């Protein structure tokens, strides 16, 4: 983006949201919400204002609080008005008019730039792609194919929420491949999201009005609507209502108390305790001054806890026709919809601190269009921040809709809680138990027709589920120590994320059998999989049924795929061809 400086605040009447457009996804080019530059430049404006105020601090105090001027006057040095300070210069030479005009000129230029950048920032949603064009001098044109959409997020930062705006982010399948539409009015954003997902699923747009119930209420005068939206935004902040779209009911409810307790009982707390102990020992053994370093440590941890807790507040997860809808965040609310077949790995884990309470956490590996180092990536990886076993069951059923009913006991009874007496998992052999002293009875795998389950850890218990239709490849590893004990490790390769695919110390022959089994099952599962257009031929929106071999899929339906991803053309079409135009 060539220009992203701030727009000076406009009168508040302009804060009225535009009405819900008849359809923003009709294949034509549309513009974003006119207040967009204000919000995008808002942060920049605050920073600039901060710098200006910081530099003029003394002068402002001198101006408005003259009774404090005894010691300040010395700093300002009123005598030397011809000095380097531009404001002194203006005052000394009576250049108020010139300065005012210059300021006005800058403002006009900025507003014009913003208007231009807004005018040139357009988007289009067709049956095949989402496209965004932006930039005035340096044009950017980004297009994301719909059948590679990995999810759609609706982020509503605090201030944007107050005036009923949201940013929409279409998650693509590469690094920095997301297409962002910021900002739209919340109602528009919800409608656009529903349309994108419907188009991506392969259904027709015509069915749209029937099932979304896009809100088109009676039109009120602008000012009334503006105040109503702000009021609703304020209410929403407190009550957590998802205006204006009816929120599907969450299958999980996390009490605030449990959430706070779970964050306090996290592994980072152990680190804090370790640090505190180290500091106290240090202050006893060395100088007592070391104790003062407790303060920054506590402040840092406090901020961390507050951040993680506010992020996870207002959590909800619910099934929708287009995928799993996850909402979280107190101040900045993120609602995201994960279409079926976009989850590459799921892990249920429990630290030892949570075991007395029976709490579990669920994380997933998915393409969020962000690097691993990005802080927000972590947020998108956690699907259930803390939940009881019943919660875990419900969320897993949403995330892995294809697992047959008969296989769920293998996940819950044996995988998550196991091992039981009739353990179906293949575990670390007894001869190698010294390499997994605590967990050797639990450390094992189970290969199902369409999922690989890896069960690990006795202190930190985890169960990782890898849907075979998403598994990229499988590896077998053996070091010298393993060889001496005739064991080997396997590693399921998925897209990068927090779920690790490694499982060490398995009997060598079992690992070899697993390797062959997974290699064959992956190919079969991938051929059966049709989730890239998950409701394509099937108006019920029922995603892939595992037992229908579908050779039509192998021959790549539709014109979409031929150009989209050539093996040598790169992992995704993350198109960003900038053509220059004066």
């Amino acid at each position, binding site marked *: 983006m060539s220009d992203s400086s701030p727009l000076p605040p406009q009168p508040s009447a302009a804060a009225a949201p535009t009405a819900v457009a008849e359809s923003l996804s009709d294949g034509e080019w549309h513009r974003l919400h006119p207040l967009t530059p204000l919000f995008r430049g808002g942060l920049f404006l605050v920073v600039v204002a901060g710098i200006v105020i910081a530099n003029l601090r003394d002068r402002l105090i001198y101006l408005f609080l003259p009774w404090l001027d005894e010691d300040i006057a010395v700093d300002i040095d009123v005598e030397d008005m011809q000095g380097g300070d531009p404001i002194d210069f203006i005052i000394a030479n009576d250049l108020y008019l010139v300065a005012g005009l210059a300021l006005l000129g800058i403002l006009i230029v900025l507003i014009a730039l913003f208007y231009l950048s807004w005018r040139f920032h357009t988007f289009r949603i067709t049956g095949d792609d989402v496209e965004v064009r932006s930039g005035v001098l340096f044009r950017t044109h980004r297009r994301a194919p719909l059948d590679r959409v990995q999810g759609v997020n609706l982020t509503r930062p605090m201030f944007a929420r107050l005036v009923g705006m949201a940013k929409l982010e279409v998650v693509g399948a590469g690094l920095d491949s997301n297409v962002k539409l910021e900002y739209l009015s919340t109602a528009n954003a919800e409608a656009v999201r529903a349309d994108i997902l419907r188009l991506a699923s392969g259904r027709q747009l015509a069915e749209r009005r029937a099932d979304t119930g896009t809100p088109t209420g009676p039109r009120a005068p602008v000012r009334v609507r503006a105040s109503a939206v702000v009021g609703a935004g304020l209410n929403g902040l407190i009550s957590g209502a998802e205006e204006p779209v009816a929120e599907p009911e969450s299958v999980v409810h996390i009490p605030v108390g449990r959430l706070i307790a779970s964050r306090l009982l996290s592994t980072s707390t152990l680190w804090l305790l370790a640090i505190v102990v180290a500091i106290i020992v240090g202050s006893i053994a060395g100088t007592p001054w070391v104790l003062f370093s407790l303060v920054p440590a506590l402040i840092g941890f406090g901020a961390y806890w507050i951040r993680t807790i506010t992020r996870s507040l207002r959590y909800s997860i619910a099934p929708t026709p287009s995928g799993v809808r996850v909402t979280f965040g107190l101040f900045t609310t993120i609602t995201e919809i994960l279409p079926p077949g976009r989850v590459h790995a799921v892990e249920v884990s429990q630290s030892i601190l949570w075991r007395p309470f029976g709490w579990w956490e669920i994380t997933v590996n998915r393409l969020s269009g962000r690097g691993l180092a990005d802080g927000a990536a972590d947020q998108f990886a956690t699907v259930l921040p803390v939940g009881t076993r019943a919660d875990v069951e419900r969320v897993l059923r949403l995330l892995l809709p294809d697992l047959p009913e008969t296989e769920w006991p293998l996940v819950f009874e044996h995988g998550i809680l196991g091992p039981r007496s009739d353990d179906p998992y293949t575990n670390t052999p007894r001869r190698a138990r010294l390499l997994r002293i605590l967990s050797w009875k639990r450390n094992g795998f189970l290969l199902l027709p369409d999922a690989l389950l890896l069960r690990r850890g006795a202190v930190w218990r985890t169960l990782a589920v890898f849907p075979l239709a998403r598994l990229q490849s499988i590896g077998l590893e053996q*070091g010298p120590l393993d060889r001496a004990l005739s064991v080997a490790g396997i590693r399921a390769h998925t*897209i990068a994320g927090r779920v690790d695919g490694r499982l060490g110390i398995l009997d060598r022959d079992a690992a070899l059998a697993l390797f062959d089994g997974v290699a064959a099952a992956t190919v079969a599962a991938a051929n059966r999989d049709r989730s890239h257009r998950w409701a394509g031929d099937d108006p019920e929106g029922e995603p892939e049924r595992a037992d229908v071999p579908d050779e039509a899929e192998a021959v790549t339906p539709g014109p979409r795929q031929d150009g989209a991803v050539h093996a040598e053309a790169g992992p995704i079409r993350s198109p960003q061809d900038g053509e220059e135009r004066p």
Partner: protein
Amino acid sequence: MTNSPESTGPTEVTVSVHASPIAPETAENDSAETGVLDRETFDRIREPRAPGRLPLGDGTWHQLARQYVWVQLISTGVVMVIVLAAVLLLTLVWGQWWAWIPGGVLLSILIWTVAITPRQARAYGYQLRRDDLVFRRGILWQRVVAVPYGRMQLVDITHGPLDRGFGIAQLKLVTAAASTGVVIPGLTQEAAERLRDTLVDVAEERRTGL
């Protein structure tokens, strides 16, 4: 990138032992590929001796070109000469005797690398099965990976100046998972190009979602 025209080798169909022969697509083309792939390569995979090793299994393993060892030896040798020269310069001209400490560590690592290079090169192998490519490497630390053809996102061929001099190239297979990490370092250039074309064709035919 040299972009040599399709250099097809002698057409012969290698019968593989396993029930999964070479990818059928290639077999129906002309099967020249096996000839190209196995020209000037090693002929036996080097394995660890312990009985608990990961066995070779069935099927034909293709191996690296013999020149790969020379390329590796020369490039390691160049680094060794540079390190040695730097250390000698520091000690003899400026009298910095401590330079032998890092220099010695570095040199012994390089000597060790040179010593195991020929063995290492023989441990690489790849197999074109019906639905996937199997890749193996390593003797002390063995690693075997199976990549379904449909999962390949791109095939990358690189060759440096030294590689070009010896006519070899490196082929890298990329899937959506960074951990797949299949890099076949020393193929003859014809083999690399033939393999790339085959893989791209097969991948295109069996494309699956991410």
